[in-house]
């Protein structure tokens, strides 16, 4: 059961609320009463029984031991299918009502190459993919070399003894060598050669972690049971070969995850952030979209290209981003709220047309799955450096709504909220996701679709004679083509400054009035955004503020600091423009405000959100802790950065 929501959702958006892990936390919805969970299992607890592997040699079976949390890193090449093996583990965890989070790296070279997939499975909250691995599975020598230092002391190194020679003198780790390649080839009769290694490993892990084999078999069927039966059989053979391997000869302990204390029943769904965002759009009633491929956005468009038609809609791959945003605006102008998306380079190209949406007041959802910048930058790394552009990127005074989901589950709910806001305020809405959310797999409570699902109806009800397309005294309600205008006057939407009827004007008073109108509606929105929940001490020394995918590591860091007696709290902002009102009251309760972001400290020493907060509140205690290494934050990095 998951609680990956960073802050209370807007009242109109009935999502599960954030959990406050401190008793003093603001009641955060159905799960907020849950007691403060104990810290995760310590390295020693986990590894201790195995610290003297030699002595255990020859024993036939594994001594069971119960654990709450394990970080397993599979290190190989992108061709080895470790992603799918890891994904199956994650899904299994989801079905077992365990918390799970994954983390992967995509090789930036075209021809693939070294890559990892990390699964963290836990019975309590799993907020990050883990700073250190309890288990490292190394396929090759380079996997071993590059990742052994990520293995915690006392951790278990499971290596393919056909390809890896570890330094067995290194007594920090438990060395478990298995001729994985050989055994797989043997098991599969060489037919599929070493292609089954990933599934073999899966079997091995199933044994070691005492996983639910029937459930795993079902998952294997779902994954490989396509047209070609033989593929599934191969997979099952490899799996059982791995499961059957007498790992007890080299490893003494069998680890068994504690069964979760959650009231069972609430099923979990397991998916990555881009899937969650795509299905959130569907739940939010979005049926049309257009885009151009780019990493890490592409998988959203690929999902929608197949899904929208099933809902009677359409997603078009355009010739470029300029066409894509324009076509999306055509859909929206036509009365079907539409989505477009990209990563930095493509969003830059959409800038002009998004300005038109602000001016013509046509609703639009713009998804930016952030990656390392500037320019082509680091296409497969994570960064939060597009916030400035999202808020300030347009020419002229063109305020935009900017939202940022902070977990996989939140990607789903943020998409629904974005659609609601775009419709209500007839304006472009940005969703800032990032490369780590995009590919991270998490399990979360199955959403209550019955209550969430928006049915998008084309509103062609005739407009009365007094209809004004751009009322100065109200929010624009777009009248799509096909609408009969009872007054006989048909509206023209325009990117030129205009009067209330949409006629172009250079009138000083009207430009002042319309500029204010476009600004005021965002101020109205601000008034309806709930004040974000603060987790931890409700007043005290330090408040750690973040946005987006840093939610998990920040929460975990603050949690452990808190456990160590620090006076500290965490807050994640999901609404970045406009900001929720009342933050100044929260800031006032702490001595230090540290804004943690994955972007540069800039010319004057402040990250992008920090700069926005300082400009609004002029509160010098708002400081920055940022980094630009293209990697997600480790819990310990945050601890070092915020505790001084």
């Amino acid at each position, binding site marked *: 059961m998951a609680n990956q929501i960073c802050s209370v959702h807007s009242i109109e958006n009935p999502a599960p609320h954030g959990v406050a892990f401190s008793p003093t936390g603001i009641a955060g919805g159905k799960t907020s009463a849950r007691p403060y969970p104990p810290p995760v299992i310590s390295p020693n607890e986990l590894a201790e029984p195995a610290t003297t592997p030699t002595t255990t040699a020859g024993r036939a079976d594994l001594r069971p031991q119960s654990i709450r949390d394990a970080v397993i890193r599979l290190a190989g090449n992108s061709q080895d299918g470790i992603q799918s093996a890891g994904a199956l583990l994650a899904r299994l965890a989801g079905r077992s009502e365990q918390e799970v989070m994954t983390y992967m790296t995509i090789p930036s070279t075209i021809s693939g190459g070294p890559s990892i997939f990390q699964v963290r499975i836990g019975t309590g909250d799993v907020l990050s993919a883990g700073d250190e691995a309890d288990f490292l599975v190394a396929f090759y020598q380079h996997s071993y070399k590059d990742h052994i230092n990520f293995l915690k002391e006392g951790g278990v190194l499971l290596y393919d003894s056909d390809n890896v020679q570890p330094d067995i003198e290194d007594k920090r780790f438990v060395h478990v060598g298995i001729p994985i390649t050989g055994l797989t080839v043997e098991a599969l009769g060489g037919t599929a050669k070493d292609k089954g290694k990933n599934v073999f490993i899966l079997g091995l892990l199933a044994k070691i972690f005492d996983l639910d084999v029937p459930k795993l078999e079902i998952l294997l069927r779902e994954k490989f049971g396509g047209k070609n039966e033989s593929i599934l059989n191969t997979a099952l053979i490899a799996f059982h070969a791995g499961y059957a391997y007498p790992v007890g000869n080299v490893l003494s302990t069998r680890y068994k995850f504690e069964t979760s204390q959650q009231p069972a029943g609430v099923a979990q769904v397991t998916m990555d952030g881009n899937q969650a965002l795509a299905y959130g759009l569907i739940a939010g009633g979005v049926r*049309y979209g257009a885009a151009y491929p780019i990493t890490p956005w592409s998988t959203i468009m690929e999902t929608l290209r197949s899904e929208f038609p099933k809902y009677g809609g359409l997603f078009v791959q355009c010739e470029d981003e300029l066409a894509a945003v324009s076509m999306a605006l055509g859909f929206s102008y036509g009365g079907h709220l539409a989505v477009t998306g990209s990563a930095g380079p493509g969003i830059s190209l959409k800038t002009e047309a998004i300005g038109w949406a602000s001016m013509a007041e046509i609703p639009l959802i713009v998804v930016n799955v952030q990656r390392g910048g500037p320019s082509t930058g680091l296409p497969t790394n994570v960064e939060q450096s597009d916030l400035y552009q999202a808020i300030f990127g347009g020419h002229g005074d063109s305020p935009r709504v900017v939202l940022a989901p902070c977990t996989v589950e939140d990607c789903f709910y943020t998409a629904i909220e974005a659609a609601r806001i775009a419709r209500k305020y007839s304006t472009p809405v940005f969703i800032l996701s990032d490369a780590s959310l995009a590919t991270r797999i998490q399990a979360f409570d199955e959403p209550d679709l019955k209550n969430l699902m928006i049915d998008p109806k084309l509103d062609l009800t005739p407009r009365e004679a007094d209809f004004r397309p751009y009322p100065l005294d109200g929010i624009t309600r777009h009248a799509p083509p096909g609408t009969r205008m009872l007054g006989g006057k*048909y509206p023209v939407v325009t990117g030129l400054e205009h009067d209330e009827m949409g006629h172009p004007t250079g009138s000083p008073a009207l430009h002042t009035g319309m500029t204010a109108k476009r600004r005021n509606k965002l101020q109205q929105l601000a008034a309806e955004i709930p004040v974000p929940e603060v987790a931890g001490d409700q007043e005290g020394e330090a408040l750690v503020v973040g946005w987006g995918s840093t939610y998990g590591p920040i929460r975990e860091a603050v949690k452990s600091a808190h456990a160590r007696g620090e006076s500290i709290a965490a807050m994640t902002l999901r609404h970045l423009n406009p900001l929720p009102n009342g933050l100044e009251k929260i800031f006032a309760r702490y001595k230090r405000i540290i804004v943690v972001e994955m972007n540069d400290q800039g010319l004057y020493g402040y990250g992008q959100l920090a700069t926005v907060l300082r400009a609004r509140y002029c509160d010098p205690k708002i400081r920055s802790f940022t980094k630009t290494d293209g990697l997600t934050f480790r819990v310990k990095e945050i601890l070092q950065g915020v505790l001084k």
Partner: protein
Amino acid sequence: MSLAESAPAAPKVTKKDLTADHPTWCPGCGDFAVLAAYYKMIERIQLPHENIVTLAGIGCSSRFPYFVNTHGGHFIHGRAVPLASGVSLSRPDLHVFLFGGDGDAFSIGGNHLEHGARKNINLTYVIMDNFVYGLTKKQTSPTSPLGFKSKTDPTGAIDQPVNPVKKLLAAGATFIARTHSTQINHMIQMMERALNHNGFSVVECLSECVEFYPGAFDAGNPRKGGEFRLIEEKKWDGTPEDEQRHDVTDEIAAYKLASLPFPGAFGVFYESDRPSKNALEKKWSEASRAKLGNPGDLELLQSTFDRMK
């Protein structure tokens, strides 16, 4: 765009109903006649008033929507084709008309024009070609002839101009016609045939910019001693004369016709009935829904989530 799609039985649409703001064009601008032809064409065809959409990019010609009392949009420079495509692909009940200039269509908008043609999106695009940038006051346009003196080519243009018909043919447009804003009836005919075409239909209309390129199209205007050379289309009547006539389905023949020196020929150069993207996407959507037993939205999403458990 096919009439079949239009809903019947709306109150009669008159020129008066269609008239909106008084055009801000310079007196004598060729665009006035294009506007008049548009009114007349709609009056003839009697499209349901609320189902007409008049869209444009940016330029003098692109101010068109303000002067027409239909649903309309004045978009940004050069991107009106994808905007209009979005409307067309999601709203089969509408008649999507697009108006704009040569700069809008062939310079900044050149790529969209081409891909719209290739994908054969169902809409009608009237390109008001004046061989110059009007709104920005006389810079060279992609159709300005060699030697044309503009503010950006003070001693005469040196870049070979675009050949609109060739460009559209190579791109795969399924209806391509050419007309002249002094030939009102011909304009109306071309617009009507474009409207009746099911797919991406383009009418290049030579429309004089009296302010910055006066007399540009006299060579195509009999009243100014020019020749308005009409394309004679095959009647398929087996007569020997018919041999000489133009087969509008013959791409190579159309390409040859497009190679004639200025002012060239007027009329329909090419027409083909390749299926529109609108039709193909609709087919795909219906097929994928049928395969799933045409479920309701909630049911569909729920089943997807069930697979993710």
